[in-house]
């Protein structure tokens, strides 16, 4: 569904990348190698060269907001533009939002919370919910569970799996090798600006240790 060809951004690339519907791919590699930059470039958040298509439709043929609504990047550090949580979910169906919050272990009253009082883990889960609520076709997650405890990380992983099972592609960055092979059906390693397939030992879907 997502196809990236000859993507170049500063020290990265040219990179080719394919993501099938329902596929979950882990992106690993040392810090500073440009994993986030690669995702940002695919989302067209930074100037970059190369081709990207979604279900055959090229990125260049749509406006950037149209592209990003379908190929959505969720950064490791979430940004908040209003004082309260609720306005950040504008445009999403309320029932869907409430369901997502519950699946992530958050109370539905979270929508009425002030952003300034959110913990790191709450911010991370809310920013995941915020993206999932818009139902993107491709989800790119930058360390989606790095600030979460085991239970909440497990909930987040379950939700990511469910989203993929509904036909979306997921690309996620992780520094946790166990998570990469547990959640990822395929693992890609970014090294010296190039992507390499990493052998992966399939693991049963169970709670993260």
């Amino acid at each position, binding site marked *: 569904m997502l196809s990236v060809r000859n993507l170049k951004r500063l020290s990265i690339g040219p990179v080719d990348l394919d993501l099938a519907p329902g596929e979950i791919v882990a992106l690993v590699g040392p810090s500073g190698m440009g994993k986030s930059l690669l995702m940002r470039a695919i*989302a*067209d*958040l*930074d*100037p970059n060269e190369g081709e990207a298509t979604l279900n055959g439709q090229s990125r260049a043929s749509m*406006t*950037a*907001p*149209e592209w*990003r*609504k379908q190929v*959505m*990047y*969720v*950064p490791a*550090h*979430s*940004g*908040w*533009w209003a004082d309260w949580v609720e306005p950040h979910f504008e445009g999403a169906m309320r029932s869907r939002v409430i369901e997502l919050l519950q699946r992530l272990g958050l109370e539905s009253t979270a929508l009425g919370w002030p952003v300034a009082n959110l913990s790191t883990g709450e911010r991370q889960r809310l*920013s995941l919910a*915020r*993206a999932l609520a*818009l139902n993107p076709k491709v989800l790119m997650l930058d360390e989606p569970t790095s600030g979460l405890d085991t239970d909440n990380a497990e909930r987040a992983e379950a939700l990511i799996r469910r989203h993929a099972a509904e036909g979306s592609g997921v690309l996620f960055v992780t520094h946790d090798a166990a998570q990469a092979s547990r959640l990822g059906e395929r693992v890609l390693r970014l090294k010296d600006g190039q992507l390499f397939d990493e052998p992966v030992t399939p693991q049963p879907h169970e709670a993260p240790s």
Partner: protein
Amino acid sequence: MTGVYIQLNYIDLVLASVFLLLAGGLSVALKLGLEKSLGIAALRTVVQLTLIGLVLKILFQMASPWWTGLAAITMIALAGREASARQGLKLRDGWSYSIAATALLTSGAIVTTLALTTAIRPEPWYDPRFALPLLGMVLGNTLNGVSVGMERVTATLKREREAVEARLALGHTRREAVRPYVREALRAGLMHIINAMSAAGLISLPGMMTGQILAGVDPTEAVKYQILIMFLIAGSTAIGALMAVLAVSKRLSDDRDRLRLDRLKGEAR
């Protein structure tokens, strides 16, 4: 004219400087280290104002549209430089200067020309005795609004980078993503003139009006002039700040709806 204009001689100026010398003396006594800055600033006032007095005298005598125009362009160019020099964070490749100068040129020129041709109507309309002081007052205040607005929108976009990019990543347009910061910057840019208009007559007697009264003009006439000037200044500040802030926010994003902080250099103040 209802009053008498009292001419000053140089002895009067020397007398007025006694208090400045006193301030300098205090600075030395209290080790404030301000005496040098005070002295240089005072000297600059004398030299700059004397020079501009001579230049204006010559320009008024010539009353030439070309020389008046040249003086106006020079003033605008200097104002643009001042506005861009006040920016802690500058846009690369001279964009800060270009944006400030264009905003000042457009707003200052439109407002001043309109006031000269419709409200004040000197004969000829470009009479430098009217045109240049008017432009000076309009520019001086617009400069403030433009530079404050530019500074604010740049600093907030940099500070709120994560919030702006979160919106962009969720598929908001750049216009939606920067709108709150543009609004905030405009409010900051216009605050000065709104305060000045609110305080006028109650807390402060505006300088131009005071000057006219000192020159012997009837206070009610001086007030009319002052209101006219206030309106012109407010209009020009609003137009100039709006242009500059929108242009900066446009330059700090691109047509693929990205935030382009890489187009900045320097440190926020």
